[in-house]
C-alpha cells in the first residue's frame, strides 16, 4: 500500500535538466526546489529583502529626479582630506573593498565547510565578521562626519532637503543588515568551532549564512552605484 502512495525515487525526481526540468519541477506533485528547506527559506527571505531595498532605492530615485533644488554632489560630500588633498569618495571606496574582501573570505569559508575543515571554516568566518564590523565602524564614522556637517533627515546645508532622509534610510538599513550579519556569522562560526555539525556532517548552515552575507555585499553594489556615483 505504501508503495502505491509514495512514488518511487525514479518518478519523483525527473532526471532531465534545462527547460524541461524546470517545467517538470514546477508541475509535479513534489518539492519545487530540490534544495534543503533552510536554503530555500533563505533564498525566499532574500527575495523579500530585495523588494524592500528596491523600494527604498526607487523612492530615493523618485525623490531625486523630482526635486528642483540642487542635489548635493556625493563625490564632494563624501570626500576626505588626505595630505592636504581632497580625495573624492575615498572612504566609500575603502568600505567597498572591505565588503568585497569579506565576501571573498566567506566564499572560501563555505568551501572549507564542505571539506569539513572546522578550524579553517571558523577562522575564515571570523575574518568575515571582523571585516563586516570594520565596515559598520567606517559607516559610523561617515554618519558622524555628516551629522557634524549639519546633515539631517529633514535638511542639510549642501542642497536638496531629501538628501539626508535618503542617505540615512538607505545606508542605515544596509548597516543594520551588516550588523545583523556579523552577529549571525559569529554565532555560526562558534557553533562550527565547537563541533556542533560534526555528528550529522551537514555543514550547509555555513553556505546559508554565506548567502545572506553575499546578499549584503550585493545590495552595497547597487547602493554604491546608485547613491554614491550618481
Amino acid at each position: 500500500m505504501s508503495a502505491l502512495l509514495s512514488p518511487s525515487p525514479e518518478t519523483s525526481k525527473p532526471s532531465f535538466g534545462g527547460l524541461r526540468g524546470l517545467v517538470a519541477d514546477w508541475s509535479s506533485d513534489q518539492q519545487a526546489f530540490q534544495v534543503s528547506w533552510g536554503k530555500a527559506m533563505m533564498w525566499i527571505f532574500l527575495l523579500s529583502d530585495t523588494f524592500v531595498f528596491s523600494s527604498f532605492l526607487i523612492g530615493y530615485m523618485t525623490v531625486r529626479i523630482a526635486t528642483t533644488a540642487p542635489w548635493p554632489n556625493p563625490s564632494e560630500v563624501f570626500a576626505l582630506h588626505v595630505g592636504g588633498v581632497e580625495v573624492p569618495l575615498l572612504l566609500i571606496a575603502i568600505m567597498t573593498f572591505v565588503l568585497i574582501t569579506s565576501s571573498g573570505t566567506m566564499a572560501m569559508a563555505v568551501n572549507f565547510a564542505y571539506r569539513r575543515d572546522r578550524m579553517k571554516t571558523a577562522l575564515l568566518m571570523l575574518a568575515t565578521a571582523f571585516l563586516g564590523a570594520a565596515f559598520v565602524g567606517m559607516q559610523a564614522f561617515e554618519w558622524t562626519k555628516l551629522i557634524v556637517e549639519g546633515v539631517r533627515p529633514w535638511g542639510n546645508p549642501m542642497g536638496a532637503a531629501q538628501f539626508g532622509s535618503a542617505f540615512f534610510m538607505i545606508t542605515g538599513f544596509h548597516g543594520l543588515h551588516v550588523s545583523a550579519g556579523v552577529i549571525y556569522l559569529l554565532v555560526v562560526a562558534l557553533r562550527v568551532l565547537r563541533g556542533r555539525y560534526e555528528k550529522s556532517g551537514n555543514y550547509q548552515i555555513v553556505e546559508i549564512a554565506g548567502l545572506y552575507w553575499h546578499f549584503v555585499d550585493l545590495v552595497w553594489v547597487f547602493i554604491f552605484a546608485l547613491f554614491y556615483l550618481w
Partner: protein
Amino acid sequence: MTSHSGQQHPISLYLKIWGLLFVLSTLSYLVDYFQFQGYLRWSLIILFMLLKAGLIVAIFMHMAWERLSLVYAILVPPLCLLVLVILMAAEADYTFALRQMFFR
C-alpha cells in the same frame, strides 16, 4: 550531489572572482575620480554594477549551479521591480516638470 556535500568549487575560482570584483570596483571608482559625465558616466556605472552583481549572484551565491526552478523563482520577480523603476521615473519626471512650472 546531496545537501551534505553540495557546492564544492576550487578555491582558485573564488580568488579569481574576488580579484575581478576588485578590478570592477576600482573601475567604477575611477569613473567618479576622472569625473566622466553624461551618458558615458551612466553606461559605465550601470555596466560595472551589473557585472559585479552578476558575479556575486552567479559564483559566490552558487546560482550558476542551482536548478533552473530555483533560479527562475529568484531572478524573475525582480523584473517587476524594473517595471516599478520605469513607472516611478516617468512619474518623477512629471512631478519635476510641474514643480519647474509652479515653484520657481
